[in-house]
């Protein structure tokens, strides 16, 4: 989407062939190379980019991890995983070529000698494979490993690129657990890499529909004039999943729904929906507008939190007709856990455009249906003509579905056929999967290509992350406060959350949208 400060001179032979920045040959060094993320997402994504012919041929992958392993063993493991998790069938001839660009480097994360030998190896790869000194370090590890890795990268001189080349780092979420830890994490990252070298990945932003929000809003002249408090009544953002903690109890117990989903993914979506048009499509122009929204989120005082935020935790229930245990009975969860698996919020953006428009956010596990969507509810037609009866007409609702069935729909009123004058809501529906047969690339494919191309648009900037924590922290603090602690409400698995969440909207005369 954007041009970065490192944009290379243009290759005239690329004209008309690509509408995006072309990734440059580089070495991708993955820390945590034997972990789940590498196997399930990163290597399959790189393979798919290669199979689509979009990977620079010289691109090289070096897996960095603790376990002793040969290049060949590492390739074999990754091949098995890619065959299992790749979105397209693995072709032997393409995999064989791709595998030759994959290497393994064994070292402890805190062992300086391992980084020295990594530097030598990367130098050799540059010479042999033509990667031009470009390096992309991917930290697919827990945040507590960031410090030793980044410190050692710096000491080995790997954080600096030679003239005409670049060095970048991709940091996986979570970006801290609160404002203080996020600042500390950013301080650690910035000791080795500057902000324009840092790419904080939020895979939600790599999704086609998330990217389409800006296109919908700013490439269609009909929406922008009505995208404000004069016409919009309220907005809902929902991220529902049928799954429980699924073996992530260790992480989830310390995080909860607010930190796990709202602080990053849902606030990012909120920004895309609420932001002003950027001056251009440059990464910083877009991120400048997004950060203004996070800054404009009205902070809540302790006494306001209970009124505007509802926490829930799923109890025993059923999903798709099958009984499932309650959260506290899940493996790895404390029997008296107070971690929320559901949260509903009413937030306000104090800016000119949406000052009077409440934004309702809900996210939860073990809800009846999985789906992520944004719905913009427009104000009703004036109470005259068709709208003056006791039962007034429905609102127009624009729904942007992020997953699983990506698309956009618009609800409007229509006269039912017949001699009577009955008006009913109808839906105009656009489905990506129906209109475009070609499958979208996985979010990680898009984001990896962007990082290789130096396009940071879809990555979170330091101030975005920190401002988001500044908004979230008071809520988290209220939940552990000794006095006036807001309640944690149970809801049966397979329901749409606690009743208190419905009441949150009912007080405003509204209801959650049925997904």
């Amino acid at each position, binding site marked *: 989407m954007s041009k970065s400060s490192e944009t*290379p*001179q243009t*290759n*005239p*032979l*690329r*004209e*008309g*062939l690509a*509408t995006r920045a*072309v990734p*440059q*040959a580089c070495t991708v060094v993955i820390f945590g190379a034997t972990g789940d993320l590498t196997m399930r997402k990163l290597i399959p994504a790189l393979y798919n980019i290669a*199979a*689509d*012919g979009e990977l*620079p*041929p*010289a691109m090289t992958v070096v897996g960095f991890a603790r376990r002793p392993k040969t290049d060949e063993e590492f390739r074999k493991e990754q091949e098995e995983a890619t065959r299992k998790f790749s979105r397209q069938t693995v072709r032997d*001839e*393409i995999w064989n*070529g791709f595998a030759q*660009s994959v290497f393994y480097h064994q070292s402890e994360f805190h062992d300086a000698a391992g980084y020295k030998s990594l530097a030598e190896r990367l130098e050799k790869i540059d*010479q042999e*494979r*033509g990667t*031009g000194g470009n390096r992309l370090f991917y930290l697919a590890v827990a945040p507590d490993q960031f410090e030793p890795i980044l410190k050692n990268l710096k000491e080995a001189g790997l954080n600096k690129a030679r003239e*005409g080349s670049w060095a970048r780092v991709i940091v996986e979420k979570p970006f801290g657990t609160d404002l203080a830890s996020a600042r500390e994490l950013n301080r650690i990252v910035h000791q080795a890499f500057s902000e324009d070298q840092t790419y904080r990945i939020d895979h939600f932003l790599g999704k086609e529909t998330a990217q389409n929000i800006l296109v919908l809003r700013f490439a269609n002249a009909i929406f922008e004039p009505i995208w404000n408090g004069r016409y919009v009544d309220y907005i809902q953002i929902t991220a529902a999943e049928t799954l429980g903690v699924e073996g992530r109890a260790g992480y989830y117990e310390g995080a909860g729904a607010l930190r796990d989903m709202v602080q990053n993914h849902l606030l990012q979506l909120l920004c895309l929906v609420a932001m002003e048009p950027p001056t251009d499509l440059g990464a910083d122009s877009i991120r400048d507008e997004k950060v203004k929204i996070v800054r404009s989120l009205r902070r809540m005082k302790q006494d306001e939190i209970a009124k505007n935020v509802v926490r829930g935790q799923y109890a025993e229930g059923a999903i798709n007709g099958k009984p499932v245990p309650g959260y506290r009975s899940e493996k790895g969860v404390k029997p008296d856990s107070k971690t929320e698996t559901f949260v509903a919020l009413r937030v306000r953006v104090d800016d000119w455009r949406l000052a009077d428009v409440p934004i309702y956010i809900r996210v939860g596990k073990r809800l009846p249906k999985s789906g992520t969507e944004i719905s913009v509810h427009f104000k009703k037609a004036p109470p005259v003509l068709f709208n003056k009866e006791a039962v007034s007409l429905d609102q127009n609702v624009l729904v942007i579905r992020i997953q*699983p*069935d990506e698309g956009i729909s618009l609800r409007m009123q229509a006269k039912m056929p017949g001699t009577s004058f009955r008006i009913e809501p109808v839906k105009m529906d656009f*489905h990506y*999967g*129906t*209109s*475009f*047969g*070609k*499958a979208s690339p996985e979010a990680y494919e898009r984001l990896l290509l962007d990082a290789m191309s130096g396009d940071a648009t879809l990555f979170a900037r330091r101030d975005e992350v920190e401002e988001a924590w500044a908004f979230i922290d008071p809520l988290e603090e209220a939940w552990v406060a000794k006095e006036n602690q807001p309640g944690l409400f149970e809801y049966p698995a397979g329901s749409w959350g606690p009743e208190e969440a419905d009441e949150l909207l009912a007080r405003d005369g509204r209801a959650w949208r049925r997904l």
Partner: protein
Amino acid sequence: MIMPNEVAQTFSPGLPVEIGKIDRELKKLWAESGSEMTRASLINLAVYSEAPGSLPLNTEIIFKITEDHACRAIVISANPDAKENRVEAWISAHCHVSRAGSKQICSEQLSFLLEGPSAKLLPNIVFSQLDSDLPFYLWWQGEFHDPMDPQLWAWVDRVIYDSQTWSDFRAQMQRVETAQGDAKQRIVLCDLNWTRLVQFRLAIAQFFDHPASHHRFEEIERVEIDFAPGYRSTALLLAGWLAAQLHWTLEKDSKDNTLVFRDQSKKTIQVSLNEEAGEPLGRCVVNCGSIEFRVAHSANADLLDLAVEGSNAERKCLMPAGSNDSVRLMSEELMRGGPHRVYLRAMNSVRDLL
């Protein structure tokens, strides 16, 4: 309806209908299909052919194209030279299971057989069947001939043709450009012969992506292009692309298969075209003196072998080659879109040789 499991047996154009009742019959068709099928359309795609027996062939092509590109297809088989007047129409739907796997996504096809004087009804038939507000792409198979109907061209957003099949490129192009000028609207010219080059262009371009390799443009001394019999125009377009993008001008002393260009510093670049049985484009070698960039179509595979040799930089890798069939070329063309300015420049730089 043509359903996926019937594909192997036949590609009939569908249910015969009276032209005046097409709309009604289509509504009936959808009403009978139930809620498991969703009609989808992003473009109007009219396919015109004068080749005998083109209807079943184009029906098969449309079936495959609609897997990725939902459209309203208007397939016309015409024989203007027939003595007897004949007009027939059919309707059908091509259905594919959606990516989510829950629904059948269907595109409509309207087919027409026009013989004798009725062949002149083409614009009228096309106009009356267009899905409103959707772009109109006209895929003209074979040669254009006079008179080019200005009424029809005025409605076209993109005209798609394959210049590789033309017997006289200059005469054909002149007709197209005249029609384009008369239409008084921007019609994008889409040449499938140009689309055929996409993978080769991508493969060659990637050699020069790194800014440190840009100086190689000035070092290009020689280019060799192997092409299959009948595909000289494809090879010429590839040479034209390099020339146009790198600002080379064609020298007058160019011969049939040895083209001589001069770059901005007046250095000579020789482009040799070699006819060899095989893929339309078999190989392209760009020689920069000390270093050579090579792209070759792998034998019996839909892959391109890329290699860099010389200057201590030896690298090899594979890229998708695509295939030369109409479905792939059309899908590629429909997916890429764009104004094709580079095509016009490439074509114009070797126009006299095409």
